[in-house]
């Protein structure tokens, strides 16, 4: 097992290098002259030149890249121009909000999509199969930002079921003491059930919005791979041997059908992290996405680059986790390692 994890870690290194190089190139591709930008509009030519030397922008690109790497190694992502705060600190405080939302969205999607896919595959041509097909086609066509607004309109404005779609917690509550940064976990640690319910209510709409978008690929893959497995020889043998339906479906078929579904998770995470930004904007969610967007409006580039780098590294780590999970579910992968 350890060997497998180690091997995947080594395999992820080229990806991490690629991500760092691309983010560096994006930093240096700022529109116009970065030195003139940082020096401000009123700066004289000499002042611009001084800023250029101070920022190391007069050095060759390779040297600049070396400095960039050194800064990264020290966890220095630069300071935000508008707030003056270090970007890394801000990202660290806001990351739990984004992660909580993303993970809950994924959990919701998986809990609906996987059973739906299984049911559709076991009863081809039935109404549930048609429902699954409609859902998968409509689901990928949904602009996340639009679904979010629509859900807020229906469940907040018309029905009044959801709390006001702004932020992580209604202002009448004070956030739980910071332990993990996940309000759901922290409120449970404080044994404050009301706070837990309030955070969950606030999370509900944004998480469902995210989940609706990624449900489609998951359901589609579950259905297709279940259909494939159910028509294979070993299932026929199991049926002929008189095993119970439940045993065949969950003990034999589902475990094998799960592998392609886990593979799709990689793509699903790419969608999730991307649409996370949109959902955070719609629901004024104080995560790293809305941090980047606020900075973007103010032409403040360091936070945006820090955000892109964080997201990319997060994605690499998630893919690594998927690879390891794959090894846990399919023992054959471990044998190869």
């Amino acid at each position, binding site marked *: 097992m350890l060997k497998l994890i180690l091997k995947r870690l080594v395999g992820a290194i*080229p*990806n*991490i290098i*690629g*991500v760092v*190089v*691309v*983010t560096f190139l*994006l*930093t240096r*591709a*700022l*529109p116009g002259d970065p030195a003139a930008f940082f020096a401000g509009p009123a700066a004289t030519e000499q002042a611009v030149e001084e800023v250029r030397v101070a920022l190391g922008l007069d050095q060759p690109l390779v040297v600049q890249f070396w400095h960039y790497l050194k800064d990264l190694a020290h966890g220095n992502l630069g300071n935000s121009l508008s707030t003056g705060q270090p970007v890394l600190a801000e990202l660290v405080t806001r990351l739990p909000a984004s992660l909580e939302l993303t993970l809950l969205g994924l959990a919701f999607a998986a809990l609906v999509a996987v059973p739906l896919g299984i049911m559709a595959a076991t009863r081809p041509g039935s109404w549930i199969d048609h429902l699954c097909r409609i859902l998968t*086609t*409509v689901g*990928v*066509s*949904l*602009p*996340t*930002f*639009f679904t979010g*607004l*629509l859900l*807020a*309109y229906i469940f*907040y*404005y018309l029905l009044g079921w959801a709390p006001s*779609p702004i932020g992580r917690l209604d202002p009448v509550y004070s956030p739980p003491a910071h332990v993990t940064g996940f309000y759901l976990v922290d409120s449970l640690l404080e044994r404050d059930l009301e706070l837990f319910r309030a955070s969950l209510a606030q999370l509900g709409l944004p998480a469902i919005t995210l989940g609706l978008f990624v449900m489609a690929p998951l359901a*589609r893959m579950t*259905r*297709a791979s279940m259909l494939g497995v159910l028509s294979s020889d070993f299932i026929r043998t199991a049926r002929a041997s008189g095993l119970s339906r439940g045993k065949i479906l969950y003990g034999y078929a589902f475990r094998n059908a799960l592998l392609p579904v886990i593979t799709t998770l990689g793509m699903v*995470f*790419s*969608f*999730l*992290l*991307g*649409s996370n*930004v*949109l959902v955070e*904007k*719609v629901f004024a969610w104080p995560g790293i996405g809305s941090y*980047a*967007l606020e900075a*973007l*409006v103010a032409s403040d*580039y360091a936070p*945006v*680059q820090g*955000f*892109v780098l964080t*997201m*990319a590294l997060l*994605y*690499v780590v998630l893919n690594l986790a998927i690879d390891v999970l794959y090894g846990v579910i399919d023992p054959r992968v471990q044998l190869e390692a």
Partner: protein
Amino acid sequence: MEATLRHVRYVVGENPLTFFAFGLFTAFVLLALLGPAIAPYDPLASDTANALQPPSREHWFGTDQLGRDILSRIIVAARLDFGIAVSAVALSFAVGAALGCAAGYYGGWTDRIVGRLADTIMAFPLFVLAMGIVAAMGNTVFNIVLATAIINLPFYIRVARAEVNVRRNAGFVEAARLSGNSDWRILGVHLFPNILPPMTVQISLNMGWAILNAAGLSFIGLGVRPPTPEWGIMVAEGATYIISGEWWVALFPGAILMLAVFCFNLLGDGLRDIIDPRRRT
């Protein structure tokens, strides 16, 4: 030819939705071509006396916060949204086909470098990478096209590479080589036509996503700027009003955007069934 027609008829008969999607697609194309000519009002003319009016007989889709006719803005925006998606997909196709063909044909270092490029792009969450590109290169429509093209590139590279790779030592390629054709000619004349069917499927499956992506970037304030009518921006402008009950400002552009993406996805699925029945799920 006859067999293809029969297959098309079979697929359309099996799945009337494809036919419906094709009709819808034609309607959207007409809208994009004729847009400004058929819009009932000037999409930029504001009329503050009539701001935020619900749908009525004069303004079918209502008016926005500046009193502009929403229907006209939606119609005129079709050209811009489709234009961005089509140019982005065309760019991905051209560059992806060239790189993928070269990688599949030459193998070795070319293949490794191109493959690494595709992997690096895929190592990012794609929408986030597009955001980063537009933020770094500047807020213009051209950069939106470029960013959308870049994040779609790996899919085209992979399809083209795989299709060329399996054929590079095929009999007809060997024959062409023995008759004295240059590498370039073999790639362009003998191999390229073979990648077209799977690439076409990729294009139609990709179009919807490209539109969604461009609208998403505009929604967060990148790319197209107000007051230019664009579906993503219109939804963003309506977002402030939907919470206070003025639903029509965001609902109509959002619904049209959804319909356009839905139409492309249906069309892509149908086209895939016709061209490549094995990939049917």
